[in-house]
């Protein structure tokens, strides 16, 4: 007989009873499905240092096994166990830095290779965690690929705990943890003729770039795709030649770099804020799909304006960054 600690209470197991049966017998509210170790609905994590029975980790990711995740429905406890329900944020995957370089004076590209295949949509974000435990959310700036790599655009802030670490200490080969991909700001299949309007400021370009590539390369989106990328000054923009090339190769993709500050070269950049320029150019957004990424104020204001100009709320995808 062993004792299971859950939700600050102790429960004694009966002989040949699984951990799930013990918890259910005591009327604990825990999710479960197949009761056969297949569906993983009942996934839990053991907080003890003693490894859980290996048979109860059947089918889990290597990183989950390492962190003592297990399936209570097929777990016959051998020792006392202290268990918790997992939260999405608790599951950390292992990755390795494979590339890092400057995209502009204050934005770095960081490329990470995951140890295991991972599922995500271009435009979603993950939490990155460094060795000191500092965690920040970053959008994925690439599309799912066979080498399991993720690319991030990291804005280097003068006193940014995480971004300074990326700029100063991260070296190729270094390991890094990241969470499962989250967020609903991504390309949705269907309606490939629908016009898309994407507006981003600063590194808000990262998810938009992934979404555009996903739309063009994986889904052959046939409707017009308009990207407005804005910054106060030209040094805040990046990927310009890549995006101009993309526009040359795809006749339905249109790229407008916008600079709101003074002294910008108006033969290259539109003068003004990206959101205002975009909303002025497209005053009727009925039937459009709109993606907004960047500073929260810009995102909130533009979401409202896009809606007032005719876009349906369900067609507006927004991702506000706190910087």
């Amino acid at each position, binding site marked *: 007989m062993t004792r299971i600690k859950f939700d600050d209470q102790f429960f004694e197991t009966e002989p040949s009873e699984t951990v799930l049966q013990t918890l259910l017998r005591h009327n604990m509210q825990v999710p479960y499905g197949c009761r056969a170790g297949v569906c993983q609905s009942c996934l839990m994590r053991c907080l003890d240092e003693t490894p859980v029975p290996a048979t109860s980790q059947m089918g889990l990711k290597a990183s989950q096994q390492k962190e003592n995740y297990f399936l209570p429905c097929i777990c016959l406890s051998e020792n006392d166990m202290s268990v918790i329900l997992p939260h999405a944020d608790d599951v950390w995957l292992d990755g390795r830095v494979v590339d890092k370089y400057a995209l502009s004076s204050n934005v770095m590209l960081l490329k990470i290779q995951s140890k295991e295949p991972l599922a995500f949509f271009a435009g979603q974000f993950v939490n990155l965690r460094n060795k000191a435990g500092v965690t920040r959310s970053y959008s994925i700036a690439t599309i799912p690929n066979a080498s399991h790599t993720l690319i991030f655009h990291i804005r280097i802030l003068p006193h940014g705990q995480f971004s300074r670490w990326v700029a100063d200490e991260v070296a190729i080969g270094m390991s890094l943890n990241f969470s499962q991909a989250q967020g609903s700001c991504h390309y949705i299949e269907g309606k490939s003729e629908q016009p898309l309007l994407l507006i981003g400021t600063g590194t808000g370009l990262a998810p938009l770039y992934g979404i555009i590539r996903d739309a063009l390369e994986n889904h052959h989106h046939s409707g017009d795709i308009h990207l407005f990328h804005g910054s106060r000054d030209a040094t805040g923009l990046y990927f310009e030649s890549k995006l101009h090339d993309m526009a040359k190769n795809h006749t339905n993709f249109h790229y407008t770099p916008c600079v709101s500050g003074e002294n910008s070269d108006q033969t290259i950049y539109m003068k003004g804020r990206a959101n205002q320029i975009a909303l002025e150019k497209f005053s009727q957004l009925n039937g459009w799909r709109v993606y907004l990424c960047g500073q929260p104020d810009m995102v*909130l204001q533009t*979401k*409202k304006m896009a*809606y*007032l100009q005719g876009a*349906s*709320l369900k067609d507006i995808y927004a991702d506000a960054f706190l910087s």
Partner: protein
Amino acid sequence: MSEILNTANATLFEQLGGEGAVNAAVDIFYRKVLADQRINHFFDGVDMDKQAAKQKAFLTMAFGGPANYSGKDMREGHAKLVQMGLNDSHFDAVIENLAATLSELGVSAELIGQVAAIAQTTRADVLGK
């Protein structure tokens, strides 16, 4: 096996077109409210998706459909706005936008009157009277 819709027995909600009609109306109604200078400052900074869900619940009720609203919810939900100065003129503006929405959707004047009458029943709770 066609069935003749007996409008005398059909509920107001059925006559208006049920949930589909509510969905069509929410999009137009909320847009009108946000564009209306008389009342849009009450909506500054709200989460638009959550607000649209609330508008849908309100319209469902006003259309005579299933409602989960209680007078207490209405009072508590608007108490802050009353402190900000929400009064009868603002309530009238909302009813006006509601009527304009229905008229745009081709709803008859008679049914619009019935919807407005249901919406009016919330006035005292909304305004904290």
